[in-house]
């Protein structure tokens, strides 16, 4: 059939990526995936068919011109190749590592129909790392426009807005509530998936572009949005405050010691570096039997961190089945290789503690899948009388996070949904003049790339707004 035509031969297998061996990495916080060498990169890039009508692009939330950058890469024009990516994505070193490519570009790649799709993310990562290693080229400073923008939150959305607007000559001040910039990239995603020095390099670059970074400023408390605009003289504001409010299960015993929200657990480990306690002051206590409740990336990250902190046994308890696991498949595989156990179709009903108020056991009930719910996935329903007990001395609750509420509570006239997200148009415009928003605070929990994309659109809209706005 089609195979017999003298078409270019398709290499069905992608070049495997080097990883730290499971038995080594399960006890250290170093990066797991080591990345392609130059040779491997070129070999992988050679698999791309350079389709005239590329399918991959539609899978990319920011529509990177994938075949074009791969072509430049193959020709050895690395500088031009990374520039091509950066037309659309300002955080390639980060996205190359944490994007769910298997759900995005790579899912649509035609090679994927006959074999493994092109490892687009790994190519992106190689180019981004290559660029960082030789030092970012600084764009020429444009003349100052005299307009200023307050960016609230230093996560992927805020950092993108800040970079784009600074490049256009606007004065940008980033207000970040925590003592380090990066949002989830520093406080949530662990070092072994995304080394913090990569995030820091991006932030350094944005500061070199001229953006000012103010750490320890909780907007809504230190200043409100109206104060920033009216009293502090900012011409516009961007809200990129993310979805960090942890959800709990509301089952008895949830306030016992040893039960962490995933946010607390990961903030302690990543932001506060508790894994290096007592060199760092913030403690964390990991028991022998750790359970993590949930099935997303956050659950995987928590489980893998617990293992690295010395837990004997780590078990993920998820109320649906393997097929419904929302985490990236690659991360589930990584977790299982490291020895993490997944217990499907179960959910906690209560925690049982000792006299000191520390958790000792968790009671669960088995679930079965019923009719599909709103999300289209089959709804888990408890099986009567199927309760069982698990030894548990540390539990991490990773069942979702909702929007950070402080700005919504303190900004009159800002339209908010019932879920607590900020209402914004496609370009980030909110119900208040000069106020834009994007990222998880608008969409609810999503991805780095979508937050980055929202930032790009908002920066464009803010620039247009500022250009039209007369000088006060």
């Amino acid at each position, binding site marked *: 059939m089609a195979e017999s035509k003298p078409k270019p031969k398709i290499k069905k297998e992608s070049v495997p990526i080097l990883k730290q061996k499971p038995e080594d990495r399960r006890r250290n916080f170093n990066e797991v995936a080591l990345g392609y060498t130059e040779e491997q990169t070129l070999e992988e890039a050679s698999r791309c068919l350079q389709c005239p009508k590329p399918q991959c692009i539609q899978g990319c939330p920011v529509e990177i011109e994938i075949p074009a950058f791969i072509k430049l890469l193959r020709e050895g024009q690395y500088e031009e190749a990374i520039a091509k990516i950066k037309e659309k994505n300002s955080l390639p070193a980060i996205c190359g590592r944490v994007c769910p490519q298997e759900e995005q570009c790579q899912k649509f790649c035609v090679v994927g129909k006959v074999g493994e799709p092109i490892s687009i993310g790994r190519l992106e990562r190689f180019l981004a790392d290559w660029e960082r290693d030789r030092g970012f080229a600084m764009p020429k400073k444009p003349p100052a426009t005299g307009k200023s923008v307050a960016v609230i939150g230093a996560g992927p959305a805020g950092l993108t807005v800040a970079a784009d607007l600074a490049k256009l000559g606007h004065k940008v001040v980033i207000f970040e509530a925590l003592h380090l910039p990066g949002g989830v990239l520093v406080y949530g995603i662990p070092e072994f998936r995304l080394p913090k020095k990569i995030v820091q390099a991006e932030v350094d670059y944005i500061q070199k572009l001229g953006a000012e970074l103010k750490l320890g400023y*909780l907007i809504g*408390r230190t200043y409100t949005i109206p104060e920033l605009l009216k009293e502090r003289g900012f011409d516009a504001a961007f809200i990129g405050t993310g979805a960090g409010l942890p959800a709990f299960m509301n089952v008895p015993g949830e*306030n016992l010691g040893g039960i962490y929200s995933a946010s607390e657990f990961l903030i302690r480990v990543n932001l506060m570096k508790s894994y290096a306690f007592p060199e760092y002051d913030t403690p964390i206590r990991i028991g022998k039997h750790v359970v993590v409740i949930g099935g997303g990336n956050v659950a995987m990250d928590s489980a893998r961190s617990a293992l690295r902190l010395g837990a004997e046994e780590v078990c993920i308890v998820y109320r649906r089945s393997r097929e419904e696991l929302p985490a990236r498949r690659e991360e589930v595989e990584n977790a299982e290789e490291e020895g993490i156990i997944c217990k499907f179709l179960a959910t906690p009903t209560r925690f049982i503690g000792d006299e000191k108020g520390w958790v000792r056991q968790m009671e669960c009930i088995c679930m079965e899948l019923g009719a599909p719910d709103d999300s289209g996935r089959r709804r888990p329903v408890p099986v009567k009388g199927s309760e069982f007990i698990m030894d548990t001395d540390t539990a991490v609750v990773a069942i979702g996070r909702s929007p950070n509420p402080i700005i919504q509570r303190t900004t009159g006239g800002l339209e908010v949904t019932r879920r607590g997200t900020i209402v914004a148009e496609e370009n980030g415009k909110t119900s208040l003049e000069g106020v834009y928003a994007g990222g998880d605070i608008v969409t609810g929990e999503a991805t780095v790339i979508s937050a980055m994309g929202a930032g790009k659109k908002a920066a464009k809209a803010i620039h247009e707004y500022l250009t039209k706005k007369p000088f006060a």
Partner: protein
Amino acid sequence: MYEVLKNMELAPKIRLFEVYAPEMAEKAKPGQFVIVIIDEKGERIPLTLAGYDAENGTITFVFNEVGKTTKQLGILREGDSIWNITGPLGNPSEIRNFGRVLCVAGGVMIAPMLLQVKALREAGNTIVTAIGARIEELLFFEEEVKALSHEFYVATDDGSKSYKGLDFLRQILAKKKFDRCVSMGPVVMMKNVSEITKPFGIPTVVTLTPIMVDGMGMCGVCRVTVGGKMMFGCVDGPEFDGHQVDFDGLIKRQRMFLPEERLSALLWELQGGCECGRKQA
């Protein structure tokens, strides 16, 4: 970086800090707190504001040297810097003319209570204060609080000064009608105060001090049960209705990291309680 302008001992192991932080000084209100990180390896610890001066750009807090971080803070000299301070955080206290207000403060929290008393007095309230400490030597700000109060009482746990314990509050409450009670101090004290005011039906506001990390609603470590519901101390509080708080649950959660805290303090002492052995910030 925030410069320490004043480090003053108020009583044994109790210190008052004045720090240059003009933006916070301008925005702060009674009842709010800040989160202090001493250096890049430090813990985030919450401390209640005991004063602020927008004109001079300063904020004031008073703390007890109880563990590693507070001891390390204690040895900072005037002119030294604190790596990061976030604030003001938490909801400001409700300040208006309630009528007659009973203010009960214990230990280090006498300092923020002074701020509270000042504001309540300015709002036109009749102020009855009771301050207390474990022993007489640990009392401070007596004169300052007294000067702003219409009636003033002192108590110690051992009875070394005036009243012993809190029972005398019942007699005060029995004599006159009170419209509100504000209490700040050790959790056990606030629990007792709430139990005493409850039969009198006096609305009682307590300032809770659960363990915190971010202080902005993102981690949930500060969760407390109030009226059967889960609340976050940092963003829903720090002030709550004392008659609704599950104090025993709070006390247990405060002790969660006791072994680690002891280890941290011990290592600090072994290193001579100074910056040696730790990379200079």
